[in-house]
């Protein structure tokens, strides 16, 4: 398969692992954060971490948009789904995320019309097919997904689809990274930057990481060799005393990003003053809502949304996992009370969540041996 197989070559993988071994200083511990949930998933799926020396530790960041959705936001979605005449559409990732009073899947079982879609365009199609119903799309995701929602909102306007609206929960990647870097309990040596978010925003927004915090970042693709090469590039920067934004994923990430996507996002969205992140609290200018010009397509304007605020479950340590302060298996409920079948925290729901990745790929036992 072109663009895939050449990035899974075992010989090249071993060569990169050798290069990593040659770059690390004995006695120094390296902590690198992969920002994106997709990277977390690939690392455990392909066993990338098994190729790393013991003193190179990968820390899993907040880049899973499902994992960072607070419970109150899920409850708001469920309240909307239960309104008369509403068809509530969302990505499959979201339906099992627990709110304070169950999940969207449980709401569906209780009679709400909740439908899984693959794209916002599918939600718009459902709206066209059901002109007598109100169709709400629960929009989540970072800048990779936000342009898709923006284009669909513009299409709904252009095609005069009046029964379509969006409950916008899109988030942006830079503010949580800055919040993490400001966190006093975090010690990191470098970042593996998000690949497809950067396809949209480019590499430039990450320049503050080396400039303000003195940490290197390498934007990486999602195949095992992409990740290994990104680790080589970060370690080489550290070894040479450099600190820059580098782009390992240049085959799809232009330095300036996708200008058209940025333009359509600027037209359709505006920044919320604050947005709540699970485990990280409220972060300024980190969430998107529909702009004034598109307010008529905003589900939170069209419907009465309760605006629920729910504290995270006490037993759940998703926040510390998301900040990379603890490993998933160090959480008190990991693998016992909290499993992918019956998740307490969102990190166990999404297959890209750090907890689910550890659980599904059997890392709770092996990690203990290593550590």
């Amino acid at each position, binding site marked *: 398969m072109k663009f*895939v197989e050449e990035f899974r070559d075992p010989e090249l993988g071993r060569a990169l692992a050798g290069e990593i071994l040659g770059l690390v200083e004995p006695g120094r511990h390296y902590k690198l954060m992969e920002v994106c949930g997709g990277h977390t998933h690939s690392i455990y799926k392909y066993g990338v971490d098994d190729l790393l020396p013991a003193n190179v530790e990968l820390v899993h960041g907040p880049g899973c948009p499902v994992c960072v959705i607070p419970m109150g936001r899920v409850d708001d979605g469920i309240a909307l789904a239960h309104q008369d005449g509403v068809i509530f559409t969302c990505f499959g990732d979201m339906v099992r995320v627990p709110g304070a009073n169950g999940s969207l899947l449980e709401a569906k079982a209780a009679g709400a019309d909740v439908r899984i879609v*693959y794209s916002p365009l599918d939600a718009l199609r459902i709206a066209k097919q059901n002109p007598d119903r109100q169709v709400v799309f629960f929009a989540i995701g970072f800048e990779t997904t936000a342009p*898709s929602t923006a*284009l669909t909102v513009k299409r709904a306007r252009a095609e005069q689809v009046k029964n379509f609206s969006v409950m916008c929960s899109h988030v942006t990647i830079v503010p949580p990274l800055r919040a993490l870097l400001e966190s006093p309990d975090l010690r990191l040596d470098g970042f593996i930057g998000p690949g497809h978010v950067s396809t949209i925003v480019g590499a430039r927004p990450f320049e503050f990481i080396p400039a303000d915090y003195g940490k290197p970042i390498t934007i990486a693709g999602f195949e095992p060799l992409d990740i290994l*090469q990104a680790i080589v590039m970060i370690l080489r920067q550290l070894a040479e005393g450099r600190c820059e934004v580098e782009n390992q994923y240049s085959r799809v990430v232009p330095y300036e990003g996708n200008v058209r996507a940025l333009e359509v996002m600027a037209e359709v969205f505006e920044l919320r003053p604050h947005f709540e992140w699970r485990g990280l609290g409220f972060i300024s200018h980190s969430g998107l809502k529909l702009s004034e010009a598109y307010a008529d397509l905003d589900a939170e304007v069209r419907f009465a949304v309760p605006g629920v605020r729910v504290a995270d479950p006490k037993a759940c340590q998703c926040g510390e996992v998301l900040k990379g302060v603890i490993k998933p298996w160090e959480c008190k409920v990991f693998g016992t009370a909290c499993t992918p079948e019956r998740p307490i925290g969102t990190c166990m729901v999404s297959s890209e969540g750090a907890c689910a990745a550890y659980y599904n790929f059997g890392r709770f036992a092996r990690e203990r041996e290593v550590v």
Partner: protein
Amino acid sequence: MNPSAEAGCGSEHCITCGDDGVPMTVLALDAERQLALCVDEDGVRSQVETALVEPVAPGERLLVHAGTAIASLAASVNGSVR
């Protein structure tokens, strides 16, 4: 609707949280509506927004996320991993 959507999060990969990008090939175009019929490596066909990567042509390979092409793979010449 793409059949993989029905699998939801129980499948191996989540669309949004995986920052997923699926390489797809353009089969046919509706240039006026900026939509393309595309097929992925498994033969699954779906409608894709092409506004962010216009102009596109049949046979072109696109990187698709949540029903929207976010990059053209044809333009990606720097694919070396070395």
